[in-house]
């Protein structure tokens, strides 16, 4: 077994900070003995804010500082979404509350090109989602977690990679005892015995240790070293995706929403990769303070997975979105994942070219900006009435019907009445009628009965028109098409 632990030391802060495109002094406070700063981002630290300061003191140090109360529920949701995202690397992911994930990557190493390459991809992915991370690979889950959280920090991007069990022992030895998650009383007891590091603990005989610390703590040590099994509950991905991003500062510009939305889409992409699916519809919900949320949906003609493709569509949609009030939270809901059918390449593409439907990405983009009604195809309908011989449809359909090369290329949306002079149709001069007359007399069975004689008419200037004369009623002349 190979366990990759992903530790997120700044999660309480980053559930807010990852929505920020530009650095802004930000801190998270925790209630307890007085309200104190728990974490502060670099911009806040640069102004002198330190974890442990009282909130009032911190505010006095930095005028621009925003202090937000810690939100454990949001942290847990963020961790679960990250777990769903990490399913793109392995099907075995386990949550380790409060701030870590465990990935069983034994079976993934070869697919991703070895431990180094896999760790690099995980690290880049987590960073792109807006989290600082510390990674460690170790033969036991607990060992990986301890190393990730407490291991030596050399270069920030290097993970601790331990392959052999005996190497794990020596890697853990210099770490402080706090790393084991003991409570204050136990730590105090051990400190009085002169034990500071894990190596001190490992030197002691086990039986005596069991009596002093209790059997439960000893198992912890044995699991750490891989002497006993350490079963972990696997994370089960939800059947839908529901992303939420609280904005630390209210956003009143549409352009400022792109960055936080990108975070959600990146996350969704990982989730989709993990379940080998795509989505063809996103529901966005922009929450305002004291107002109804702005909701809109984004659709695609076929299921998409890549965040970049959705972002293109989103940009177009946001381009004509009007915000009634500043946005303070963004939610993204996907109720249904769809199987993604990968594009298949053909060795000889020519014979199928006619059946192929062109890529719909362009049309998605047009629809996102102009609305779904603005992009239409036209299809044939088997009907002799000109108005009914075609219909609007989704682009890509063609329908079946009657082909007529002698019909005009343009049809007027509504027949236009023509003047008559001395019983002849008139349009800026008398119209010359062709010799042929075509009678269309049909449709008695529905509400659009047609009884007409069609002619090809020529104007004085030489333009050719398709006109008809009503056979009933006032027997008026109408212009219906242009050649």
């Amino acid at each position, binding site marked *: 077994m190979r366990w990759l632990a992903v530790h997120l030391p700044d999660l309480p802060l980053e559930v807010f900070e990852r929505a920020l495109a530009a650095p802004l002094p930000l801190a998270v406070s925790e209630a307890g003995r007085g309200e104190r700063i728990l974490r502060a981002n670099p911009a806040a630290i640069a102004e002198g804010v330190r974890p442990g300061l009282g909130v009032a003191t911190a505010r006095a140090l930095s005028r621009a500082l925003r202090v937000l109360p810690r939100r454990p529920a949001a942290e847990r949701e963020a961790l679960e979404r990250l777990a769903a995202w990490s399913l793109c690397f392995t099907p075995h992911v386990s949550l380790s509350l409060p701030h870590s994930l465990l990935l069983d990557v034994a079976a993934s190493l070869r697919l991703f090109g070895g431990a180094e390459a896999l760790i690099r991809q995980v690290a880049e992915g987590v960073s792109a989602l807006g989290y600082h991370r510390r990674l460690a690979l170790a033969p036991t889950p607990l060992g990986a977690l301890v190393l990730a959280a407490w291991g030596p920090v050399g270069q920030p991007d290097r993970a601790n990679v331990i392959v052999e069990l005996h190497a794990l022992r020596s890697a853990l030895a210099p770490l402080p005892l706090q790393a084991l998650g003991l409570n204050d009383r136990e730590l105090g007891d051990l400190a009085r015995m002169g034990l500071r590091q894990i190596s001190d603990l490992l030197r002691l005989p086990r039986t005596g240790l069991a009596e002093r610390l209790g059997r439960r703590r000893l198992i912890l040590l044995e699991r750490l070293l891989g002497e006993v099994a350490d079963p972990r509950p696997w994370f089960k991905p939800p059947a839908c995706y529901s992303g939420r991003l609280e904005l630390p500062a209210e956003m009143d510009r549409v352009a400022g929403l792109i960055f936080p939305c990108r975070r959600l889409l990146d996350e969704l992409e990982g989730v989709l990769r993990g379940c080998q699916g795509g989505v063809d519809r996103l529901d966005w919900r922009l929450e305002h303070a004291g107002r109804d949320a702005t909701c809109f949906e984004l659709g695609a003609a076929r299921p998409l997975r890549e965040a970049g493709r959705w972002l293109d569509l989103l940009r177009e949609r946001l381009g004509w979105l009007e915000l009634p009030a500043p946005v303070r939270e963004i939610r993204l809901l996907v109720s249904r994942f769809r199987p993604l059918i990968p594009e298949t390449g053909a060795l000889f593409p020519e014979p199928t070219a006619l059946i192929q439907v*062109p890529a719909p*990405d362009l049309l998605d983009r*047009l629809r996102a900006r102009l609305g779904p009604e603005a*992009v239409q*195809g036209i299809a044939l309908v088997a009907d002799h009435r000109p108005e009914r011989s075609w219909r609007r449809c989704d682009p890509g359909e063609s329908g079946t019907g009657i*082909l007529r090369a002698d*019909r005009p*290329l343009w049809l*007027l*949306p509504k027949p236009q009445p023509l003047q008559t002079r001395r019983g002849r149709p008139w349009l800026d001069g008398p119209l010359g009628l062709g010799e042929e007359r075509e009678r269309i007399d049909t449709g008695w069975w529905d509400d659009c009965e047609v009884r007409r004689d069609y002619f090809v008419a020529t104007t004085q200037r030489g333009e050719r028109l398709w006109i008809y004369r009503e056979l009933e009623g006032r027997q008026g002349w109408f212009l219906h098409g242009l050649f």
Partner: protein
Amino acid sequence: MRVQQILDQRPDLWRGQASRYSLPAGIPTGIQALDAQLVWGGWPAGSLSEILSDRPGEGFALTVPALARLSLDPRWLLLVEPPFQPFAPALAAHGLCLGRLVVVTAGADRAWVAEQGLRSGACGAVLIWGGRWERGSLRRLQLAAETGGALGILFREEVAARSPSPAVLRLRIRPSPLGRELTLLKQRGGRPGALLMLPLDSAGRRLDHCNASCVGPDEPGDPNDRLHQS
């Protein structure tokens, strides 16, 4: 004696039409006499062309054979803001695969839609009707067409002939009692000025795509046209 007649007698004379640089491939227009006049041997793919006419919808018929040919490829044919309803039975009868046709109601976003379509590479042709066009936005369309390899055709009013345009081909089409009168106002890398009569078939119904006659390349159209070749 017309210059054209002299040229017909002397095939060894260098015409100045042979290009000094490579030209985009042409899509046959379906009218041999017109193809012969165009340096590309047809509509210039990957470029913007203009068809000028004061009559709404005029000139669409001229493009239908090329559209039918393009509809064999799995690429979209975009009709942006057509002035009337394109009539499906007639288009299908001319060999156009309706499954490729997309009619876009763009309103004020005409230029954006045209540029997206031309640039995307997913369109075989983009036909745009109407709108007010600045030189800069026309230039963008031309560049987009070059990027996406699409045939861009812009339908404008005849007044537009007075202002220069980056389009590589400009045609003016007018109805006449004998058929349609087609003037070649500009072609990049070739000679403008040709005037063609496109006759009708016996029923007087549609363009005959075989027997257009060339009245002569030296018939000047409007003197203004000559002044503004860009």
